[in-house]
Every structure is written in structure tokens, then in C-alpha cells.
């Protein structure tokens, strides 16, 4: 059993929990994920690591309540236990001194971006962060990311904070202003990552994205998380979750992520969490 040490409500549908998992915390690196299961009848879901504390032996994840499991997880309290918690899984982000790195986070994608921004800064990069959300209430980790970035830009769809518009608009502006960019990291909704990758492709700026396909085991056994990258089939759990954004088939990822949408709705309805 894995105890929930801390819980924060970041918005109506976005929650942050810190879980006691010393073995996972000891090894966790930016870019990796965990698989958890709430109880004996639960499904296994992957969540990207938002933070880790090796001394406390704790892992923090941030999630949006979208299906039955995340809704149920959102209702859990400090002191409650998760049945299973395995990780860290996937390949860690390749952190090195690139020069200037633009880190783009959208929605809950900001959460896994945070440890990457921090590591890139520690590696001596000039880090420009761009955070986006639908509105200011859905924006998260602004202060934390500001602290480890050289510059921070905010974009909201409704203009309630920062620039009105999308993260890609801010990126376009930076490029137009002649900002030298060596690498872009983009984590967020599939459509956001696609738009960013399409933009940077034009300027041949290396772009890394973190994919979130449906998984079962998370250890390379089931092949459910396969994604098409550069025309080849890759398994996000062991080959990723980070890939070259210019090679990812985002359309295919979107389709595959909708595989069980009807079943999910049905389960939510039955559980009274629709």
C-alpha cells in the first residue's frame, strides 16, 4: 500500500497528490512516469511524475479528472492508500547544456514540465518557459516554474492572465523577434504539441514532446501504448514517453486515445461521477 501524504486541489478538476513511494523516489528522473492502481478492481493508469523528493521518499503527480479512475483518485484524502504504485517508468529526459531552451506547458502538461525545466536550468541552460491554460484558474505551478526559468510567459485562451491566445502564438513571437532557440520542450494536450511541432518544423528547431497514450502494464509487455514515430511503431512505455515532435503521428495518437471513450463514460455514469 502506498499512502497519500499530501493533497492539494489546484482547480475544480485538477488535483495534486504526493505519495509515499521511497523506491520510486530514489530513482525518479524528469520525464519519467508511474503506473498506479487505486484498489483491487481498479485499472492501471500512467501519470507523469510532477516532482520527487528523495529524502522524504515521495512522488508528486498532478492529474485532471477525466475518467472514472482519475475522478475516484481526486476524491481520495491525505492518509488514504493506493493499492499499487510502480515506477519510475520510461526513459528520462535527456538533459544537457543545449544553450537556449524554450519549455512549453499546456494545462496539466505543465506538471511534468516542471522537473524538466528545473533540470535544464541546473544544467546551465537559458530557459524560457511558456505556460498556457484555458483561463487563469487552470494555470498551475506558475511560481515554481518562474523560479527556475530565466523568462516566463503566460498565455490564456480567454486572456484572463498573460497574453490572450495560445502558447504557440508566444513561441511564434519569440521566433519573429529573432530569439535564438536551440531546443523546444512541449508537453500538454495532443493538439497543442502538434501545433508547436508544426511551427518549429518550419524553423528546424529540435522539439521534444511527451506522449500520454493508454497503457496497461507500462513495462513493454502489452503494446497498447504504441505510437507511430517517423513511420515506425514505438512503445511509449519503454521507448518514450518523450519523442521527437517532428516525427510523431499526432492524429493516430488522438484516435488511439479515444479507444475506450464510450466505456469510460459508462463507467463514470455507473459510479455516479459523470
Amino acid at each position, binding site marked *: 500500500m502506498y499512502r497519500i501524504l499530501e493533497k492539494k486541489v489546484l482547480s475544480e478538476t485538477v488535483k495534486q497528490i504526493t505519495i509515499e513511494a521511497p*523506491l*520510486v523516489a530514489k*530513482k525518479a528522473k524528469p520525464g519519467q512516469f508511474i503506473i498506479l*492502481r487505486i484498489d483491487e*478492481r*481498479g*485499472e*492501471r493508469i500512467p501519470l507523469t511524475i510532477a516532482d520527487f523528493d528523495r529524502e522524504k521518499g515521495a512522488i508528486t503527480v498532478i492529474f485532471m479528472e477525466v475518467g*472514472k*479512475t482519475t475522478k475516484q483518485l481526486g476524491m481520495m484524502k491525505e492518509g488514504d492508500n493506493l*493499492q*499499487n*504504485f*510502480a*515506477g*519510475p*517508468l520510461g526513459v528520462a529526459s535527456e538533459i544537457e547544456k543545449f544553450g537556449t531552451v524554450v519549455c512549453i506547458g499546456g494545462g496539466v502538461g505543465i506538471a511534468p514540465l516542471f522537473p524538466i525545466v528545473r533540470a535544464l536550468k541546473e544544467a546551465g541552460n537559458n530557459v524560457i518557459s511558456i505556460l498556457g491554460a484555458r483561463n487563469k484558474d487552470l494555470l498551475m505551478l506558475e511560481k515554481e516554474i518562474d523560479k527556475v526559468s530565466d523568462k516566463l510567459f503566460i498565455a490564456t485562451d480567454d486572456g484572463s492572465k498573460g497574453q490572450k491566445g495560445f502558447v504557440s502564438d508566444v513561441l511564434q513571437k519569440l521566433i519573429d523577434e529573432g530569439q535564438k532557440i536551440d531546443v523546444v520542450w512541449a508537453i500538454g494536450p495532443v493538439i497543442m504539441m502538434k501545433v508547436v511541432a508544426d511551427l518549429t518544423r518550419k524553423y528546424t528547431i529540435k522539439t521534444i514532446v511527451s506522449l500520454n497514450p493508454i497503457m*496497461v*502494464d507500462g*513495462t*513493454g*509487455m*502489452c*503494446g*497498447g501504448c*504504441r*505510437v*507511430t514515430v517517423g513511420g515506425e*511503431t514505438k*512503445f511509449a512505455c*519503454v521507448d518514450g514517453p518523450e519523442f521527437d515532435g517532428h516525427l510523431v*503521428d499526432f*492524429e*493516430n495518437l488522438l*484516435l*488511439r486515445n*479515444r*479507444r*475506450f471513450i*464510450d*466505456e*469510460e463514460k*459508462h*463507467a463514470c455514469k*455507473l*459510479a455516479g461521477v459523470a
Partner: protein
Amino acid sequence: MAVKKEKHKMPEQDPKKRIHNFNEVPLGYDVETAIAEAKRCLQCKNRPCVAGCPVGIDIPEFIKEIAKGDFEQASVILRAKTNLPAVCGRVCPYEEQCEGKCTLLKLGEPVGIGRLERFVADYIFKKGEITIERPQASGKKVAVVGAGPAGLTCAGDLAKMGHSVVVFEAFHAPGGVLMYGIPEFRLPKEIVKKEVEYIKKLGVEIRYDVVVGKTVYVEELMKEYDAIFIGTGAGLPSFLNIDGENLAGVYSANEFLTRVNMMKAYRFPEYDTPVRIGKNVATFGAGNVAMDCARTALRLGAEKSYIIYRRSEKEMPARNEEIEHAHEEGVIFKLLTNPLRFIGDEKGNVKQVECIEMDLGEPDSSGRRRPIPVEGTEFTIDIDTALIAIGQSPNPLIPESTKGLDVERKGNIRTDDEGRTNIPGVYAGGDIATGAATVILAMGAGKKAAKAIDEYLSTKK
């Protein structure tokens, strides 16, 4: 008295009924039938059956005890060589192993060795307690990676030799392929749990949620343990590498079976993991796993469940029993048929598979006649789900994360016949070493490695 030429029939669930449930298909011998079947054994002096058993069970001896009605003693003899008799008695390919060597084959059918093994294991489980004598502790610690057939066998044997054993399992449950792969109707999960309970009673500890190669590394285990056995099994599923394979509705056999068996998707939404199959399901491949997929699809409500295989019935690698059961249940066999591409609808779901008819040519490197496409015979089949059951390559996590570990070109860990890798004290066996094979071969490898580890530990200071 003349020996009965045929095996005593195994009572089975009616095919019409069983395609609507996940209960076990063969129901097992009763006491009278078991004794009668045991009496068919000629008790040959040269014991050809034993030579056919990868774990070397004293077959005539345990059968003799059944014939006498001493099932406890039969169990003691069985368990001296196998830690998983209830599993072996259900899923072993007996026809190629023990039963394939039986002297009675000259007269008719062999002794139903598998059925008798299952009978004894089930009889003892029903009776309750299995007495276990714990040997004197050796003071040595062994780490076993993976709680599948190879790992559990190795762990059980090492515990019987007095070593302290910890099994590290990535999943939340033990059994490996016994739990996620083989369906409930062929191997009830309660049986697997009971077998695991027995291994735990031998003193083996199992730690779940530990992904060796990620959560801990082999190098770290080497510092804490005197020896290590790696039994992480077959990992990455193979695909056909044809167009449309990443459409929604195309599953690897591993994903489909894991959802249904381990995660119990057949009981969704009572259990949270879903699976969706629609009306028409096509399984590609013709091994045991393919039969499991096709038969599972029927039980999930498929109206048509196809096996699509590029060779003919004769080349199908599945056990005869699985093929017969699939026929009885109405699985449609499209043999000498090869898929060319999957065709999707506007939402990205698979809706058709285009196939071509095949002809058999000269034998290839596997000794089987090579299938050759017959030009102009392309046709399509309407499907809602495709299940790819054509095998898998070894799990990459340990080979990739263990410095200096000798790995073969395909990613298997290289070992000698006793399971030794190139790193002293590190052993491997089962699918991770040999590539995808059977439960019993994995058990045999676990057993050999346990013996080699015991020898290593006794010479190590």
C-alpha cells in the same frame, strides 16, 4: 486383462454453454476415473515418459500411487519435482512430452498423464493443507526477478534447498503469463493463486510493483543477494508490420488477454479496465495464444471469431486440444490466408482486413512448407477487432539496464544449459533466455538454474 486402448474421457462443459461463460472447460477426473486411468499405466522399467518431461517428474511412480488410491503420496512424488502441478496438469503440451513417449501409443492412446497430474493437484487442494517441511536455512539470499513460471519454479526449488528467496514482480499480482496470458477457462486464476500460496509457504517472499531495471537495478541486487535469477519473460509483442496496424481495434494478444484475464475486463464495469471487441473478431496466428484469443472473443460476445493463418492446419503450432476446443466452440479457421492491410473507418477504427490466399511451397528454414501468395486472390473480411498473436521479443528492461550482461542479437539473455549468464552469480531462464516458448520449458529452465545456483552458493564463501 487387456488394457483399454483409449484414455478415459475428460468430462467437459458443453461447447454451446461454455462460450457464454469463463468457467473452466475440462472439468477433471473423479476418483474412480482417475484410478481406472492410472491402472492403464504399464509401469515400464525404462520410463520413457520421464525422459519426455522437462522437469523430470517420476511419472510411473506417482501414477502407481493413484492406482493404489494413495493420492497424498502421489502428490508428494509430484511436488518433489514440480512446484506447479495444478498448472502443468492443465497447460503442458503433453502430446509432445510425456504422453508422446508413452509405450501405450503402440496400442492406442497414451496414459492421460496430464489429466492424472491435474487430478492429484486438485484433489490435494480440495482437501486443504499441504504439509511442508522447511529445510535447515543455508544463510544464503537469492533474488528472483519475475513471478512467472520460470521464476516461481526457481524460487520454490531454492527455498526447498534452504535458501532465503525474494521474488521481485513488476505487476500487482503473481503468476506472469499464467495470470495475464492464459484465460480463466483454461487455467482458473484461483488455481494459480493456490500454487503461489504453496510457494509462499515454502518461505518465498514476493514483492510487487518492483520493476527490476527501473525501480532497482540488477547491479544493486547483486550487492544485497548472493545470487540472482532473471525470469522476466517475453516482452514486446510482435506485429504484422502491415498498413493500418495502429488503428483503434487492433490489439496485441498480450494487451487483449491482459485486459481480460489479469484486469478482468470481462467483468467490466464491475472491474475498471475496459475492452471492446464488437461483432467480428479476427485473430492472426495459430499458436496456443491465438486459440486463447479467438475463444476469449467468443465468450465476450463476438458473433464471428476467425483464426487467420498463412499455413495449413498441419503447421498450426497450438496443442491439439486447444484446436479441437476452438473448433467445437465455432471458431472459423481461415487457413492459407495472409493479411495484407487493415482498413479503417473515418473515426480511425478498424473495419476490414484485406487478405490474400496462400499456397504451400518448398520447406523453409523451420522445416515447414513455405507459404506463397496466390496472385489475384485478394479479398476482404469485415472485422471490428483484430488480435495479433504472432509472438513477442524479449523484454528489454533488464538487458538494457544491466552493464556487461551478454545479450544475443534478438535481445535474449545469453546463458549456458544450466542458466548461467556471463556474470558470475547471475542466472536467467524461460522466455527471456530462449525466446517465447511454453510454461513447462520455462519451469524446466527455472529448475535447472535453481540446481546450478545451489551448487554455486555451496562453493561460494
